[in-house]
Structure formats: structure tokens, C-alpha cells
């Protein structure tokens, strides 16, 4: 039984998803509420079980669980539960409350859990594809809406390209080393490495960069964020980002750990382009979901800074950053989902005008998330930036940090603009009452974001232990 415990969360998600699917197919009318709550319960149970699971290697080294995977899993579970809570009411009102959506989320999370725990390029690819396919369908959830189907198709085509590049990279690495196991690769890829494996490495990085939407592989992000139903965007902005970033960390430090000299520069460039693009391209946006898309590109740039440092402190910084980002992000999406006037979802930034006068609590929560994303203390986002800047500076990446500082100032401008619209501009948004589930997510996000400063120790210690487990 002990040997099954580490894989039990994945089994729960898989079999639970199948069971819910059966219920969904056999029951009339569509039991969307039931499957959603079922999925939430399954996710919570899986999260608890995964916390109790021991460190081990599974299936002859295909999967590996450690403090690091548990940390990343916890982020993914939290984000997925938040996204499902946000979807409960939204999907019903938009007429897309299909029972398949929570099941897709479950399968997506299963894919993420597999790819986080992957200790072999094959299991990595399987997890990667499983979560991608689930998310492609989710993006096109509103199948009668042109925008949503377009988003799904766009995501699928570009995602398939990225998967192709990834698998091509994997094949090159396999071809030049003769193995796909992380542990064996780490031993083989030492000082004198052939060009073939390096090219393979570059392709793998491109595939992963696509998933975390790091520029210049970000093209799908704004369109998919905008086109997908907001409840699905809330998922895209959080769980897959955390999972893909965790995968990025484990691949770069695991099999390619000795090739720091080869990949450090690439990661730095990705970070710089992402930060710059996230800061500059967001300025002109009028749609809040597109704004969030560019903002997430920028945030991935900052998170990559920790990886670029290539040190244990850097990994810890990236983990802290991603954890803080996930909370800010689902909080902000809770606010965006609550933007609904006379039953109609609105998503223009200008629709927020005058919100602070009408709904001070709502506006204040949104302002908190915007400030936190801009990295203003005492909010949580600042500490994420503090840790990545510190790790990068410690690794001697001064230029990177200075660029990070400049882009922080630029991006503060557009976050401030959202606050400006809510607080300074006159208007009457007349938003509908916010459903309890959305209020709950918003309140939890706001509380964590604002009060992180009082109790930073648990996250910092956990991230430190996770980074240690990863770097061994």
C-alpha cells in the first residue's frame, strides 16, 4: 500500500474523473453543479493525500515525488479549486455550465501532476500532452461563441507546434545520449557535450517557454485569454503556469543541471524579453483580460529571473514568486469574473469607472491585486520581486535586475491605470451582486495578498525546503 501512496493523488484524479464522467453522461439534466463540487472534493482529497505521500521514485524512475513536487502540486491544486469555484456561477450564467468542464479540469490537473513529478522525458511528455489537450478543449468551452472556439483552435494549433518542438528536442537529446531518464541524463550531459544535445536542449526550452507563455513564445496568450470564457482564463492564468514553471525548474536543474553555462543566457534573454513585452504591450490594452495576459507574460519573466540565477536561492525565489503570483492572479480573476452588468459579462477596463464609490470593498480588493502585481510593499507581490531580484543579484546578473527594475516601473503605470479608473474616474458600473463563491475566492486572495507580510515564514520555509529537495 505504501508504494501506491505517492501515486494515489493521480489515481484519485483519474478514476474520480472517469466516475464523474459516467455520472454526467447517465444523468439528466446535465449535473454541472454536482460534477463541479465532486471535482473540488476530489482535488482537496488529492491535495491532502499528496501532502502525506513519502519521497520516492516510481515505475522504475519514471516519476519522482519529493518536497519539491509536493510544493508545486499544492499550488496546482489550490489554483484549480479556486478556478472551479469561480466557474460555478459564471458558467451557469453564461449558459456554458457543462458537466464536462470540471472533468476536463481534473484531467488537466492530472497531467500537471504527472509533469511536475516527471523524472523521465517520456513521462514528462505524457503529462505535458494530457494537460494541454484538456486545456485546448476548455478554451473552446463556449462552443457557440466564435471567439471562444477561435481561442481554442489557436491554442491548439500553436500548442501542437510547441509540443512538436518539445518532442523534437527530446528526440535529439535521446539520440545523442541514448537515454531519457533525468538521472542518467544528468550523468551524461557533462562538460564535453555535443552540439546535437545542445540543440535538443534549446528545443526543449522553447516548448516549455511556450507553456509558461514567456516571450517571444507568448503569441497565443492575449488571444486565448481574451477569447476563452473568463472562468477558463482564470484557470489558464494560474494552475498551468505554476505546473509548467515547476517543470521548467526540474528539467533545467535535473537532466540539464550541468549545462548551466549553455542555458543560463537563454533563460536570461527569455526573462528580459518577457518582462519588457509584459510591461510595454500592456500599456495600450483596453480589455482587462488582455491586460492580464500581458501582465502574466511579464510575471513569468520575473519568475524566470530566479531560474536564470541557477542557484538554490534562485529556485527558491522562483517558487516563492510563482506561489505569490498564483494567489494574486486568481484573486484578480475573481474580480474580473464579478464584472457583470445586468446579467451581461463586461471586460473593458473603462467598465470599472466609478467602482470605488459604489462598491468600496470590491474596488479595494481589485486595487490590492493590482498593487501587489506592481510589486508595491507591503503587499505580497513585493516579496516575490524582492526574492528574485536578490537571487539574481547574488548570482551576478546585475543587468537583468536593472532591467527588471525598469520594467517594474513601466508596468506600475498600467496597474495604476486600473486603480485610477476605479477610484478617480466618474461613472456608475452598476455591477450585479457578486455570488458567494466568487466573493469567497476574492476575499481569500485579498487576505493572503495583504497579510502575507505578517506571516511570511511558512511559504519561505516551504519554498526553501522544496528548492533544497530539487537541487539535492
Amino acid at each position, binding site marked *: 500500500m505504501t508504494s501506491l501512496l505517492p501515486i494515489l493523488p493521480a489515481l484519485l484524479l483519474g478514476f474520480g474523473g472517469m466516475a464523474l464522467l459516467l455520472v454526467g453522461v447517465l444523468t439528466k439534466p446535465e449535473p454541472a453543479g454536482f460534477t463541479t463540487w465532486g471535482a473540488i472534493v476530489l482535488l482537496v482529497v488529492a491535495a491532502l493525500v499528496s501532502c502525506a505521500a513519502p519521497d520516492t521514485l516510481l515505475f522504475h524512475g519514471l516519476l519522482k515525488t519529493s518536497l519539491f513536487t509536493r510544493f508545486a502540486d499544492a499550488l496546482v491544486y489550490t489554483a484549480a479549486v479556486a478556478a472551479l469555484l469561480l466557474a460555478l456561477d459564471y458558467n451557469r450564467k453564461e449558459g456554458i455550465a457543462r458537466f464536462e468542464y470540471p472533468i476536463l479540469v481534473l484531467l488537466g490537473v492530472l497531467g500537471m501532476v504527472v509533469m511536475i513529478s516527471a523524472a523521465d522525458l517520456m513521462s514528462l511528455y505524457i503529462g505535458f500532452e494530457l494537460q494541454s489537450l484538456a486545456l485546448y478543449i476548455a478554451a473552446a468551452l463556449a462552443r457557440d461563441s466564435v471567439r471562444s472556439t477561435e481561442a481554442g483552435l489557436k491554442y491548439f494549433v500553436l500548442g501542437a507546434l510547441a509540443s512538436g518542438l518539445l518532442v523534437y528536442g527530446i528526440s535529439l537529446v535521446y539520440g545523442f545520449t541514448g537515454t531519457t531518464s533525468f538521472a542518467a541524463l544528468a550523468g551524461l550531459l557533462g562538460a564535453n557535450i555535443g552540439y546535437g544535445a545542445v540543440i535538443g536542449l534549446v528545443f526543449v526550452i522553447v516548448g516549455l517557454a511556450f507553456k509558461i507563455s514567456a516571450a517571444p513564445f507568448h503569441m497565443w496568450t492575449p488571444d486565448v485569454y481574451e477569447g476563452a470564457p473568463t472562468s477558463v482564463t482564470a484557470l489558464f492564468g494560474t494552475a498551468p503556469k505554476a505546473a509548467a514553471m515547476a517543470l521548467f525548474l526540474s528539467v533545467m536543474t535535473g537532466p540539464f543541471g550541468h549545462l548551466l553555462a549553455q542555458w543560463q543566457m537563454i533563460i536570461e534573454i527569455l526573462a528580459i524579453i518577457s518582462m519588457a513585452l509584459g510591461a510595454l504591450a500592456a500599456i495600450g490594452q483596453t480589455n482587462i483580460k488582455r491586460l492580464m495576459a500581458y501582465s502574466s507574460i511579464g510575471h513569468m519573466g520575473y519568475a524566470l529571473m530566479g531560474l536564470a540565477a541557477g542557484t538554490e536561492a534562485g529556485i527558491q525565489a522562483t517558487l516563492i514568486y510563482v506561489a505569490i503570483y498564483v494567489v494574486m492572479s486568481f484573486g484578480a480573476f475573481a474580480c474580473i469574473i464579478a464584472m457583470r452588468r445586468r446579467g451581461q459579462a463586461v471586460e473593458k477596463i473603462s467598465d470599472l469607472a466609478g467602482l*470605488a*464609490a459604489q462598491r*468600496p470593498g470590491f474596488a479595494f480588493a481589485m486595487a490590492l491585486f493590482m*498593487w501587489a502585481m506592481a510589486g*508595491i*510593499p*507591503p503587499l505580497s507581490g*513585493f516579496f516575490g520581486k*524582492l526574492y528574485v*531580484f*536578490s537571487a539574481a*543579484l*547574488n548570482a551576478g546578473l546585475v543587468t537583468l*535586475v*536593472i532591467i527588471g*527594475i525598469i520594467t*517594474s*516601473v513601466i508596468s*506600475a*503605470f498600467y496597474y*495604476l491605470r486600473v*486603480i*485610477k479608473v476605479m*477610484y*478617480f474616474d466618474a461613472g456608475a458600473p452598476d455591477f450585479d451582486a457578486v455570488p458567494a463563491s466568487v466573493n469567497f475566492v476574492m476575499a481569500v486572495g485579498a487576505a493572503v495578498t495583504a497579510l502575507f*507580510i505578517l506571516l*511570511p*515564514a511558512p511559504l*519561505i*520555509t516551504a519554498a*526553501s525546503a522544496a528548492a533544497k529537495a530539487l537541487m539535492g
Partner: protein
Amino acid sequence: MNQAGFPILSLLTYLPLLGVVYIATLRGAEEAVARQARQGALAISLLPLALGVYLWTQFDPTQAGYQFVESAAWFPGLDIQYRMGVDGISLFLILLTLVLTPIAILSSASITKRGRSFFAALLLLETMTTGMFAAADFLLFYVFFEAVLLPMYLIIGVWGGEKRIYAAVKFFIFTLAGSLFMLLALIWLWHHAGTTDIVTLLHTPIPPAAQLWLFAAFLASFGVKAAVWPLHTWLPDAYGEAPVPGTIMLAAVLSKMGAYGFLRFAVPMLPQASAAAEPLMFTLGVVAVIYISFVALAQTDMKRLIAYSSVAHMGVIIIGIFTFTVEGVEGALFQMLSHGIVIAGLFVCTGVLLARGEGLALSRLGGLAVRMPAYAALLMLFSLANMGLPGTSGFIGEILVIVGALKVNFWVSLLGGAGMILGAAYMLVLVRAVLFDKFTRPELAQVSDLNAREYAMLLPLAALVLWLGIYPSSFTHMFDASVASLVQAHTAALSSHTALAMVTQK
């Protein structure tokens, strides 16, 4: 624990948050809520003031280092702790904040729109500012230093004048851009010393080559905050557009944050670099004094004129700090207090006019002394103090700075001292245009003199101006020890370095 027996500094800092909670619970009609919020905020803000006075009485002036120190675990694994402490340099700046917050609250009678948020923001601002002056850890300092932006951005942007949005965004972006460079310096120092404890940082030698970079970073952040010329351009907009209580807090307290940063970090931590930057800082200070005084002279709006006079006075403070003499630094510190009180008084005076529905354009005012003798007397007092008339607080600060500068450089002393004459020029223009001359409009003959609430704001400030001016040693006595040790440490650091350089030359 510290000598008070309880965490007095944390209590001082976080008591206003109680008010925020109370205000958040208020419900009802907009005007009634605003009134209740104002009264609640006023009552709450008097508590830390009382505690602050108690702190003053318990403060030991013979000690140079931090007193009433508190510490608690904060960030694990790294040596970052929650540390609070107060010394001679920060004591009066904390008190200044505590005194001016109730006055700012009193001056916000005209705020009826979204009153709850306004008073909550004002109290938050008090917490952030007090916390910043009381922080004995660099990271904690930084957190408070930046967090001040959040309430201030809203105060300017929501309740400000016509160009409020432009002013608020400019204020925010300027300050943020500056402070992020300080963050870089902070991270560097943190790795260099292994801690962010200010006391340890003060005793960690820093290589002179790195000092220059760090100094540049500090200059970017503290220079913006203190509105050192040419980083001051956000200031007239922010002061001009903010509502009167916001302007009071900005001009009287927030502008001191920059000067305080120089005194607390730049000068003692980077002795070589600050010595090397002395000519630069003198130049900036002198330019501020002379050029900005002329700019003030050209203003047509009462609030903007006072705002520019504030920039000119910051020049004097900068000169004083960078003389590295006991007189100069004490003068700068004294001037910070005096300027805080005087400028608050002047801005309250503009608020009095606004409350009577008058504009602030100088060309549309005049002759007010006839109908408002009490107002005229007080405005006159603050104006005289602002130009540094003997017997008022402004004189002591200016003269100490001039004496300190004289020890270092005659020309700096002369040109910095010229500020007193130029100050007289623009302040007298202001006084003439507002109080004397003829009525420019018949309505001006109808205005009423000060009411009880306005007396409650102006009289304490006037009393403080005279107290500081007539019996300054009750204040200087408290910071003598801290300033002396600061200057000594600076001289020692420089001479040991020169000694070392001479040894290596041989």
C-alpha cells in the same frame, strides 16, 4: 524588552489601524458617515500623540543609539527581523507625524465625498509614516517607505483638484522609480552584510568603489522624495493638486522622509561616497535655494508658491546634512522640524481660504487683513517663520546650517544664506497679495474670521513655531548625542580611510 516595558513604538505605529477598522464599520448617509469618520479618526489619532509625548519624556538624551528597541522574527533563514527603535534623529520626526495627523484630520472638514475611504487613507498614511521613522531594519524601512505611496496616491487622485490624476500618477511613478533603485542598494547591502539590521549595516565597512553606486541609488530615491532639484518636478503638481490635508502630510512629513533617508543611510553608511558627493549636493542645494526661490516669486497661486518655497527649504536641509558638522546636521534636523510645522501652518491657512469658497489665485485675493485680523496675524507669523525671522523656528535651523556651512565653504554658506533674503522676498509678496493691497472683489469684504476648528489647528502650530524659536534647546538637547556620534563616526571613517591610503602609498 525596552525601557518602556511594552512595545511602545509598534503601538504608536499600529494604533491608527484601529481607527481604520472603526471607520470601515460605519454605515449610513454619506455626509453623516464622513462626519463620524472624521471624529473617530481625530479621536484615534490623539492616542498615538499622547503615547508619543510619553515617549519623549522617557527618551534618554544621553544615548546616541537606538532606544525602545523591539525585535521579532520575521523572515526565516535570512537575518531579516522586525526591528523598531528610535534615536535622537527619528524621535522628533515621529512626533512631527503624530502632531500633524490630527491637524490634517481637522483640516479635512470639507471632505464629504467618500469620507470613510479618505479618513481610512489618512490614518493608514500615519501608520506608514510613523513606522518608517521608527524602523530599525532596512527592509522594514523600505516597506513603509514605499507603502506610503498607496494611501497618498488615492488621497491626491480621489480628493484632489483639477489636474489630480496627472499629479497622482506622476507622484507615484517618480517615487517608485527612485525607490526601486534603493531596493537594489538594499539587496546589495543585505548580501554584503548578511543582514538588514541598520545598526549592523552602520558598522559594516563598504568598499569605496561600491559606495559610489550605492550613493547614486540612494540619491535617486531619497532625492526624489526630498524633492532635491532637479528631481522635484512632481512636487508642485502633487502639492498643488492634493486636498489640503494631503498637502499638509506631503509637505510637512513625507518630504522629510527623503532627508531622513540621507541622514540615516547615505551619510553614515557611505562616508567616502557622501564626502565625494559633497560638492554635488552643495550645488544641488544652492541651486534649489536660489533658482527655486525665483520660481516661487513667479507663482500666481498661493498653494504653488508655498510648494516651491518648500523645495527651496529642502535645499537648505540638504546643504546642512552634507556639511558633516555638528552645527550643520543639527541645523538640518531642526530645519526639518521647523519646516514641517511652518509649512503645515501655511497650508492650513490656504485651507481656511478654500473653506470660505475663495480661490487661491493671488490676483483674486487681497485686503483680507481688514475682515480677518486673527487669520492675518497667524498667516503673518508663519510667513515670517518661513523666511527665518529671529524668534521663530525657521531662524534657528537656517542659522545653524549657515554656521555649519561656513566652517566648510564660505560660498556655500553665503549662497545658502541668500535663501533667507529671497524667502523674505517671495513670502512678503504672498502676504501683501493676500492680506493687504485692495479688495480685488467686493465679496472679499464679506469673509468671516477664523472659527474654533481653525483656531484649534493654527494655535498649536503657532505655539510650536514660537517654542522652537525661543527655546530651541529643549529640542536640540534631545538629538545632540545622536548627531554628535553621527558626525564623529563620519569623520573617523574618513580619516581611517585616508590613513590607510597613506600607508598603502608608502
